[in-house]
């Protein structure tokens, strides 16, 4: 087993009185893709959002336990949430580029973090777009509105936008669920490419996708992490009956 980039320890999460995550323990290995699967409402997206503290934005939520990034608890009072989110980037389910140009979308992150030099920004934008396998398709229209791109291109733009702030971990919340099969295949190829440089955690509804892209898989059910293991093991020989029922399509 490789080095753990992040480690979740005894994590409980509450929406008001509702306990959405129950005592979750999970390591996230560096430069690996970890997939989170489970039926709707099982807590997998909530779990993903605890990893970069996006749940802080929701009123009346409470976190107990620890989430370690490079050994440091991200919920400790010394951690600056802005710095955390620079290191732990996120791509959402719906492609959601800003209503700005393609260039300005990618340059948004670097700009907020204080980079003003145009040559430097050009370089970051090109590198990020290449990293998201989008550069060749858009290089001649960087100043066009991002909203004119196709859904699949928009999603890769959102990945490029996340890469532009040079994160170490990339969280993806069902990044291909709103896309057609061709665009989905491109995103999956991209994930395979990206794991060389990033630690990736992906939530997906699509079991084949989890099997294709990930090395490790966690199965969530009603707030519990039922099983966490190598993806091959989970799909071929799950230890828990509930995992097998879910994977073979008996519920969910």
């Amino acid at each position: 087993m490789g080095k753990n980039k992040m480690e979740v320890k005894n994590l409980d999460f509450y929406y008001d009185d509702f306990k959405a995550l129950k005592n979750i323990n999970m390591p996230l290995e560096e430069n690996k893709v970890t997939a989170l699967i489970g039926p709707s409402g099982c807590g997998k997206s909530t779990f993903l959002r605890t990893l970069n503290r996006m749940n802080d934005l929701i009123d009346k939520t409470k976190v107990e336990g620890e989430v370690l990034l490079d050994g440091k608890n991200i919920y400790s009072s010394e951690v600056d949430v802005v710095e955390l989110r620079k290191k732990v980037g996120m791509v959402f389910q719906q492609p959601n580029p800003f209503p700005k140009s393609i260039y300005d979308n990618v340059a948004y992150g670097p700009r907020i973090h204080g980079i003003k030099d145009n040559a430097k920004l050009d370089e970051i934008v090109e590198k990020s777009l290449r990293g998201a396998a989008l550069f060749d398709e858009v290089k001649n229209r960087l100043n066009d509105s991002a909203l004119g791109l196709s859904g699949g291109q928009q999603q890769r733009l959102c990945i490029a936008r996340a890469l532009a702030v040079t994160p170490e971990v990339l969280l993806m919340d069902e990044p291909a669920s709103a896309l057609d099969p061709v665009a989905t295949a491109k995103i999956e190829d991209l994930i395979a490419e990206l794991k060389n440089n990033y630690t990736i955690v992906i939530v997906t509804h699509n079991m084949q996708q989890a099997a294709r892209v990930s090395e490790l898989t966690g199965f969530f059910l009603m707030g519990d992490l039922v099983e966490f293991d190598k993806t091959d093991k989970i799909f071929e020989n799950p230890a828990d009956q509930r995992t097998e029922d879910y994977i073979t399509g008996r519920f969910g």
Partner: protein
Amino acid sequence: MESKLIKRKLTEKVIFNILGLFLWISIAILGIIIFFIFKRGIGVISWEFITSMPANGMTEGGIFPAILGSFYLVSGSILFATPLGVFAAIYMTEYAKKGRLIRLIRIGVNNLAGVPSVVFGLFGLAVFVKYLNFGVSILSGALTLAIVILPTIIRASEEALISVPDEYRESSLALGATKWQTIKNVVLPAAIPGILTGCILGVGRVAGETAPIIFTAATFFSMKLPNSVFSEVMALPYHIYALVTTGTFPAKQVPFAYGTAVVLLVLVLLINLAAIILRIRYSKKFSN
């Protein structure tokens, strides 16, 4: 069976026609108003009427000082009310926790919108004219009008901000932006067309307000154009009121009142047209 069907179809038809009739009545009323104002006022409209000073006890000349005065009052009120209203709306939608306090404030704002405008006029007289000693002036009038349109601007800004998709906020924050950076760089630019539309509709409203400026800014007649924010001014709606109620040569002055009304109406329609164009551009930008 057959007769039941016929009856049902007949009912449909009758209802459809009655509803249509009500629509046409409403449109006709609007049409009649515009027609009468124009019919009575168009005769006095001329380049001279728009650009020259009143003369001979307002039986001759034009209404230029009133146009200019209205322009000053309206611009001044927008200048005060826009930042105040927009920042209040930002606080309410982006920062404040949703709870009893915000609900209370929203009720307050809505009630402010329902206060008769003459009450604002009295308030302006007491506070701006007397207490702050600004006198009957452009400044007092603009501040009073600013309070009149404040609820409109807060409501429009709030709606514009709320309609900005949460995904924009989340993805900005997920990139490590602070809340204010997110508001400044993503939320506000997306909301600005909506906010502007609200402000322009506010302009249309205050351009026609009479009661708030009677005690605070307007004068019946002025020989010279205003030279500072502490000057009193003539204004279009008050000019109409004055011509009709206190004129000494009604035969000549009443047509002037209608002419002034035409100018005011055209101005307000133009302003609303600008708001509509903005709204269309705004929806185009987001429906891509």
